[in-house]
């Protein structure tokens, strides 16, 4: 077993796949740089992310696996899980060594693992499209703070750009400490100088709100209560759909969290 150490980036992972082909290494243990401790008995290859090499593997994945399978490959990567990095690596090797079409062989454990993780990431992406709550600030900026389980901002960017084309907005990932900002033309990645560890409640203090913001927050909270049918109360289902970890980012649930 050869150990490949990569930098944790997407192009680093693709470069690792490229290198393993050049060196004809089939059995590879892929580790992310920060977790790696030198093992004196195993051969170690340090992978340096290389744009051109990554590009070739990326193209190859499309040729052999198809567009959709490649999209799943990227989604699964955004889970940031060490276990999935290994599956992605083995998946790529498997797909390249088989005739075209084998990216759909769910009987293979790597194909299945990648597809299942992609599904989970997709679900989190969808949740963010649902659970993001913008607040309107005094200068007309709509901003939202989130903390998704997976790094899904790259996946939701297009949705928000298409939908809110006529308003300036920012979506900030508290956990990963970066955000995306739409300026009516383009979306940029941004980092902020306000203390990222501040909770949404605290950060509200530093940003002046639109004068109507409080009214609409109240109206939404009250609407949320009025549209509930008490005779059908089903908290288990409610929590299954809206897990508690998201409540602090949802205006309509934040009061329940304080109880």
């Amino acid at each position, binding site marked *: 077993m050869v150990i490949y150490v990569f930098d944790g980036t997407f192009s680093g992972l693709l470069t690792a796949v490229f290198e393993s082909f050049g060196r004809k290494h089939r059995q590879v243990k892929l580790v992310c740089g920060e977790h790696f401790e030198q093992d004196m008995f195993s051969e170690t290859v340090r992978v340096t992310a290389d744009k051109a090499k990554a590009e070739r593997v990326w193209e190859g994945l499309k040729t052999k696996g198809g567009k959709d399978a490649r999209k799943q490959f990227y989604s699964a990567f955004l889970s940031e899980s060490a276990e999935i990095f290994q599956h992605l690596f083995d998946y790529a090797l498997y797909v390249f060594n088989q005739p075209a079409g084998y990216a*759909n062989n769910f009987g293979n454990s790597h194909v299945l693992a990648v597809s299942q993780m992609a599904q989970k990431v997709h679900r989190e992406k969808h949740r963010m499209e649902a659970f993001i709550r913008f607040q309107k600030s005094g200068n007309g900026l709509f901003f939202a703070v989130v903390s998704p389980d997976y790094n899904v901002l790259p996946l939701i960017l297009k949705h928000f750009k298409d939908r809110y084309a*006529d308003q300036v907005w920012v979506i900030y990932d508290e956990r990963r400490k970066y955000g995306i900002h739409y300026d009516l033309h383009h979306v940029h990645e941004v980092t902020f100088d306000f203390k990222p560890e501040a909770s949404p409640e605290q950060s509200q203090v530093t940003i002046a709100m639109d004068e109507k913001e409080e009214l609409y927050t109240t109206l939404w909270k009250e609407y949320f209560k009025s549209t509930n049918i008490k005779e059908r109360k*089903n908290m288990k289902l409610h929590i299954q*759909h809206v897990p508690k970890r998201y409540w602090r980012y949802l205006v309509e649930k934040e009061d329940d969290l304080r109880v």
Partner: protein
Amino acid sequence: MSERIREKLQILADAAKYDVSCSSSGSDRKNTSKGIGDTGSGICHSYTEDGRCVSLLKILLTNHCIYDCAFCVSRSSNDIKRAAFTVEEVVELTMNFYRRNYIEGLFLSSGIFKNADFTMERMLKIVKKLRLEENFNGYIHLKTIPGASEEMVTEAGLYADRMSINLEMPTELGLKMLAPEKSHEEVKKELGVIRNKFIQYADEKKIIKSVPKFVPAGQSTQMVVGATPESDKDIMGTADAYYKAFSLKRVYYSAYIPISHDSRMPVIGTQPSLIRENRLYQTDWLMRFYKFDVKEILNDQHPHLDMEIDPKLSWALRNPQAFPVDINTADYAMILRVPGIGLRSAQKVIAARQYGKLHIYQLKNLGISYNKAQYFIRCADSPFQLNEKEPHVLRRMILQNSKSKYARQPTNQLSLF
């Protein structure tokens, strides 16, 4: 000002909540002109404590109503607070909720004040203002007001994504009993207007590309279940007929929640039959996605759905001659009929078996409910069995080994806490 709008929203949201549709999918309005909003596969932005999805701002324009339908909270004889929104108020609410990503769009219904056309005209003003002045491309579900003129209804269809009109009760007889002023004939007339116009636009679109969208997410309807004594066979028979005659996108079933002391209906405090509602939806799914004919599930020998087990399992136990199904050779239609295999896993089975015969461990990984499916399938390493089990034995085994979410309640009641 803010106090009044808060009160109105509470009254008119509360009155609108018994319409169960919250779908925001099936339309494909794009935000082409740098305006606001688009529609696609639909998003549930939140869920209330009853576990229902909140996708649209669901409100009545007004709860003043000239009709006195016994099953409706807004009936004219009911002593409740009444309110009405102005056109501007609905537009403002919709836009401000939408911009904050609270909702996918608007679901607008109304009590009937003065007459049908007067009401429909106000609703039309709202959707036109949203589309034409606010450049809003989000989802709009508009209720057709029974008795509204053909011109008014077809014009509304140019701005709405979905339109619907409720059957209210599963049979004409039931409806006449509780709402003598309403009729299924009227519902058919309105559904027919939209259907015909829809077909006309689709034909024109083949020749001229610029033909505007017309109710792109189609029509739906709703039936209240359990207020009147119809059988499941009656209910699903009606659903099937309306699906076929009016190409409906959805039929919704709503377990009746007692809201009046009317002696013709269940008394206040009676629990809504949520299991029954669930079984009806399962049957609906079998008809729409699993290619079952309604008569295979409900017929004169079996006019009621089994509350203990789902309708697909129930069908399988009644038809042992169709099983076991060989996962590695059976066609897609038959794999779909296996209890414990859903649409997604059926597709995965078909995709995966091209690369080799499937084994038990693979089936489990693919996400099928093996506990249930095992009695109905054969795969590469299925154990050899001498004699098939009798259906009633199977039924007991499956019930023992599975945990239904309703299992703890022997009656058709759900616990409140």
